[in-house]
């Protein structure tokens, strides 16, 4: 199996790892957003949805482990590419261009993947440390024990800086997805003059729906509940 390891560590192999894990995460986000929409239908709808997931807990746990592996591969590979690519930009005697015209030949999203990705990663750690932890492990308020998950959401989104961070992070996620979506298809070699423009447009629409969709939740809870349960 040496050839497989070698192939995945080639320049194209690393792109493929990025693209495959990225597509998996793109699909995960769709499922996550659809589930979270129940938040807009009140406590019963959301609590009911989370309790339904509880019924199939073993399956959910398996998916979570796969998801964790995918996240780790995507993040590790992204960081590694960033570090390796930094070394290709010239030695110590000549490095960066004095005049940089990259804004005229490439998109903002495509040049800032490491920045948007890093901030989304910080957000992810906080997100797991608050929501995931209180839903699954320990909730100091005891809401999770009585399946009143909705109250955890309205309590956390009542904190202004917490909600603000969510909005910033998911907007950056939108930029990340805008480049990532079409980039994955280019990596797979699915670039054809008939349908690639469609993929690019679809990716942008997808990124906007994800960014606005996930941002709408903290905004909704902060302004309509303001920390009231």
């Amino acid at each position, binding site marked *: 199996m040496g*050839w497989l390891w*070698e*192939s995945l560590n*080639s*320049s*194209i192999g*690393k*792109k*493929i790892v990025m693209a495959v894990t990225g597509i998996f995460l793109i699909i995960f986000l769709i499922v996550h957003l659809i589930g979270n929409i129940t938040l807009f239908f009140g406590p019963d709808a959301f609590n009911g949805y989370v309790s339904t997931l509880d019924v199939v807990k073993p399956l959910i746990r398996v998916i979570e482990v796969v998801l964790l592996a995918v996240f780790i591969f995507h993040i590790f590979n992204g960081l590694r*590419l960033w570090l*390796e*690519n930094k*070394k*290709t*930009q*010239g*030695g110590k*005697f*000549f*490095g*960066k*261009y*004095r*005049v*940089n*015209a*990259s804004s*005229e*030949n*490439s*998109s903002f999203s*495509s*040049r800032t*993947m490491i920045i948007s990705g890093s901030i989304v990663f910080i957000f992810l750690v906080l997100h797991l440390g608050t929501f995931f932890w209180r839903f699954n492990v320990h909730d100091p308020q005891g809401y999770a024990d009585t399946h009143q998950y909705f109250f955890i959401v309205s309590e956390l989104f009542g904190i202004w800086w917490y909600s603000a961070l969510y909005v910033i992070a998911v907007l950056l996620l939108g930029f990340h997805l805008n*480049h990532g979506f*079409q*980039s994955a298809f*280019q*990596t*797979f*070699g*699915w*670039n*054809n*003059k008939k349908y*690639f423009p469609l993929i690019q447009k679809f990716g942008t629409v997808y990124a906007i729906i994800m960014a606005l969709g996930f941002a709408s939740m903290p905004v909704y809870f902060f302004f309509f509940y303001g920390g009231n349960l």
Partner: protein
Amino acid sequence: MGNNNINLTLNIWRQESAEAKGDFEKFKVSVSPDASILEMLDELNNKLEKEGKIPIAFESDCREGICGTCGLVVNGHPHGALPKIATCQLHMRNFKDGETLYIEPFRATAFKIIKDLIVDRSGFDEIQQAGGYISFNTGSAPDANAVPIPKEIASLALDAAECIGCGACVAACKNSSAMLFVAAKVSQFALLPQGQPERYERVQAMIAKMDELGFGSCSNTYACEAECPKGISVKNIARMNRDYIVSKVTKETV
């Protein structure tokens, strides 16, 4: 002559050798708008030589945009800001009187600076030698249409073959990736019947050589396509990715 000359301030990268510290040197020039940027540098060098100073080292050959020898980064754009031209085709009429220009070499770890604006692009030769050829004798010119090739495919192959190997794609890429160059060289054979026997060995060998030489990885910013003097499409990169995946997954040769 000289009546409608424009005055420019040039900041030109000077570097003694690969291991020396480089910096910009400032020159004030008055140049005819009909001159190309290389002719402007020729005039400047004549003046420098008369003054007993060391002329600016830069490369050029055909000066008609087909050889790929010249290559300067002008104000952040490889071959200047105009689309689909080589440096030699960049004329001074595209600049305004009083403008300041920054002229830099192609910067990448894989392109060592030899002197001033000249970089060592022999890495491209090594990639070509790794598989960018057909190793059987094609004989004398075949009869017309003896090997039928659809017009559409022939056009795509010729578009890829337009690559002059100048290195602007590497210079434009934030990762100094050579993907567009290699993709063009892989595609020109992958599309044609003559390239089929070695199609999958070729893509693997050329990618392996590219990685070995320290070119970066592609992150699909498409800056290469925007700056390419021949407008080589990133669809060639997609084709190369496809061929690489197919060769790794379905072929027994590693």
